[in-house]
C-alpha cells in the first residue's frame, strides 16, 4: 500500500519513480482510484470514474516502461478531465443534469494527446454548469452542488473547473485539465492552493471541448508545480487541423527556453488594498514579491493599460455564450439549469445590438494594440490572483468576490497566458495565490519564473489533510 504522500507528489517525481521502476503505474492508479472512491463525493470532485480504462492504460504503461519504452514525462501519470472535454464513449455532461448521458464518439484533441503521451485517465471532473458561461451567482450551480475545497469543505473550490481543483488538491489525481473563459483555471488554482496555467489563446486546441465563448475558451492544467504545468502543456499544445483557431506555432517549452530571470522586466500593478481584499492576502503577496525580487526579477510599479477591457470582454463573452447555448433556449432545457437567472439571459441580452457587438470587436483590437505596446515595456505582470481566500459554499459570489479584476479583463480579452502560483495561506489557513501574466506565447518564461519562485518557497508542496 502506498503512503499518502505519494498521491501528492508532483508529476516529475511520480514519473521519475515509475521510470526507475520503484513505483508501479498500476499500483499508483489503483491507489488513486481507491482515494476517489473514498473522498471524491466529499469534495464533488469526479462525476465519472473510468476505472477500466485507467487500469488498462496503467497496465500498458507498466509494460512499456518495463521494456524501457518511455513515451514522455506523463507516461503512467494519472489525471482527471474536466467534464466538458469530449471522451469517446464516456459521458460528458458539461456540468448539467440534463446532459448527463451525452456521449461523443471522438475524444477531444487534448484527451487524445494525453492518451498518446501515456497518461492514465482516471475520469471526468465536475464543473460549474456550462462552465458558468450563462452566469452563476452561487457556488452550487453544478449538477453535484458546490465544489468543496479540500482545505475546508465548507469553502468553495472556485470555478468553473471546480472538480479539477478539488481532485488535485485532495490527492485524487496527479494533475487535471481545466478550461478557462474568464478565470476558470486561475480561480480554482488560487482557492485550492494549486499551480495552474491558462495558456495563450490558440496554443491548445479546443476541438472536442464544449464551446462556452468561441473566442475566449482555453484549456490548461491544474497541477502541483510550474514544472508539472510545463509537462502537461507540452503534451497538449500545438497546431490542430480540427481546431481552425489553433495557433500555427508551438513555442519551445523545455527548460532554458524562457528569458533569463535577470532580463525579465516585471510590472507590479499598484493596488489599493484599503478598498478590497484581506490583509493576510496582501501580506502573502508582498512576501512573494520579495521572493521574486530576491530571485533576480526586476520589478517596477506600472499601471495596466487604461481601457474599458472588462466591458469589452464581458460583452463579447455574453453574446458568444448565448450563441453557443442557443439550442437550449430553443428547447427550454436552459430552465433545468440551477442558476435561476440563466433562463432569462436570452431576453435580458436584447439591448446588446449587433452594432454593439461589432463595436466591442473593434475595441478589442484597440485593447490588443494598447496591451501589445505595454508588453514592449514589460515582459510579465505580477499581481494577486485573488485578494481574498475562497468564499463559503453558501456565499453569494456577487458580494463575496466583489472586487475588480483588471488583469483578468485584459488577459482574457487579449488571449494572454497566466500562471497561478500558491503564495501561502490567508484567513482560516486557506490558500492564497499570485498570478504572472505574460505576452502571447510567453509560457516558457512564465514557467521558469514560477520554477524560480517555487525553488525558493515550499507553498506549492503543502497539501490539505485528507483522511
Amino acid at each position, binding site marked *: 500500500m502506498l503512503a499518502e504522500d505519494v498521491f501528492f507528489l508532483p508529476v516529475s517525481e511520480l514519473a521519475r519513480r515509475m521510470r526507475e521502476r520503484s513505483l508501479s503505474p498500476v499500483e499508483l492508479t489503483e491507489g488513486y482510484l481507491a482515494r476517489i472512491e473514498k473522498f471524491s463525493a466529499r469534495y464533488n470532485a469526479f462525476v465519472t470514474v473510468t476505472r477500466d480504462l485507467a487500469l488498462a492504460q496503467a497496465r500498458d504503461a507498466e509494460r512499456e516502461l518495463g521494456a524501457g519504452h518511455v513515451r514522455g514525462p506523463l507516461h503512467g501519470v494519472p489525471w482527471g478531465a474536466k467534464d466538458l472535454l469530449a471522451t469517446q464513449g464516456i459521458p460528458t455532461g458539461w456540468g448539467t443534469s440534463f446532459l448527463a448521458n451525452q456521449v461523443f464518439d471522438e475524444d477531444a484533441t487534448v484527451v487524445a494527446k494525453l492518451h498518446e503521451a501515456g497518461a492514465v485517465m482516471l475520469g471526468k471532473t465536475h464543473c460549474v454548469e456550462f462552465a458558468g458561461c450563462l452566469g452563476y451567482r452561487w457556488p452550487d450551480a453544478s449538477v453535484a452542488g458546490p465544489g468543496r475545497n479540500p482545505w475546508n469543505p465548507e469553502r468553495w473550490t472556485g470555478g468553473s473547473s471546480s472538480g479539477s481543483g478539488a481532485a488535485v488538491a485532495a490527492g485524487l489525481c496527479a494533475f487535471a485539465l481545466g478550461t478557462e473563459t474568464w478565470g476558470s483555471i486561475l480561480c480554482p488554482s488560487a482557492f485550492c492552493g494549486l499551480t495552474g496555467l491558462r495558456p495563450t489563446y490558440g496554443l491548445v486546441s479546443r476541438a472536442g471541448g464544449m464551446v462556452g465563448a468561441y473566442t475566449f475558451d482555453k484549456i490548461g492544467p491544474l497541477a502541483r508545480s510550474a514544472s508539472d504545468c510545463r509537462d502537461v502543456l507540452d503534451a497538449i499544445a500545438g497546431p490542430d487541423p480540427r481546431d481552425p483557431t489553433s495557433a500555427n506555432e508551438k513555442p519551445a517549452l523545455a527548460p532554458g527556453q524562457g528569458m533569463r530571470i535577470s532580463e525579465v522586466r516585471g510590472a507590479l500593478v499598484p493596488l489599493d488594498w484599503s478598498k478590497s481584499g484581506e490583509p493576510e492576502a496582501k501580506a502573502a503577496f508582498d512576501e512573494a514579491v520579495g521572493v521574486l525580487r530576491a530571485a533576480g526579477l526586476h520589478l517596477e510599479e506600472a499601471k495596466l493599460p487604461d481601457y474599458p477591457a*472588462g466591458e469589452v470582454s464581458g460583452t463579447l463573452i455574453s453574446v458568444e455564450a448565448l450563441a453557443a447555448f442557443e439550442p437550449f433556449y430553443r428547447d427550454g432545457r436552459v430552465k433545468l439549469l440551477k442558476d435561476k437567472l440563466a433562463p432569462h439571459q436570452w431576453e435580458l441580452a*436584447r439591448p446588446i445590438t449587433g452594432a454593439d457587438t461589432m463595436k466591442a470587436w473593434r475595441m478589442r483590437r484597440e485593447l490588443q494594440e494598447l496591451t501589445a505596446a505595454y508588453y514592449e515595456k514589460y515582459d510579465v505582470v505580477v499581481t494577486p490572483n485573488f485578494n481574498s481566500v475562497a468564499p463559503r459554499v453558501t456565499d453569494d459570489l456577487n458580494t463575496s468576490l466583489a472586487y475588480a479584476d483588471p488583469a483578468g479583463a485584459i488577459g482574457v480579452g487579449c488571449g494572454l497566458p497566466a500562471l497561478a502560483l500558491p503564495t501561502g495561506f490567508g484567513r482560516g489557513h486557506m490558500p492564497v495565490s499570485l498570478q504572472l501574466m505574460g505576452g502571447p506565447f510567453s509560457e516558457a518564461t512564465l514557467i521558469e519564473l514560477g520554477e524560480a519562485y517555487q525553488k525558493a518557497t515550499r507553498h506549492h508542496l503543502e497539501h490539505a489533510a485528507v483522511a
Partner: protein
Amino acid sequence: MKSSRKGPVPLTRRRFVTLMAAGSAALVTPGGAAAAAAAVARPRRAGAAGETLAPSDRKELLRQQASTRTTLDVIRKHAMPPGTEMAAVFSAMRPRRGKA
C-alpha cells in the same frame, strides 16, 4: 491608440457573468439611455422577464439589467475613428478541390 475614457469602470470578477443580462426596455435607439432608465421605473416591464422568480432573484435580475446598461453605455460612448479594424479577421475560403 488611446481611449477617450478617463478610466475603466471597475468590473468585478462576478460581474462579467451578468453582463448578458439586460432589460428589453433598454433597446438601443437614439434615446436608448432614457428608455433604459424608464425601464427601471416600470417594474411590470422587468417582471416580464422575471415574473416566476423569487423576490431576491428578481432583485438580482434588475441589478443585472442595470449592469448591462452601464456596460453598453461605456461601449457606445467610447470614441473610435470610422473604419477602425476589428480583432476578428475574415478571410476567403479556397475551394477544397480533390476532397470529397
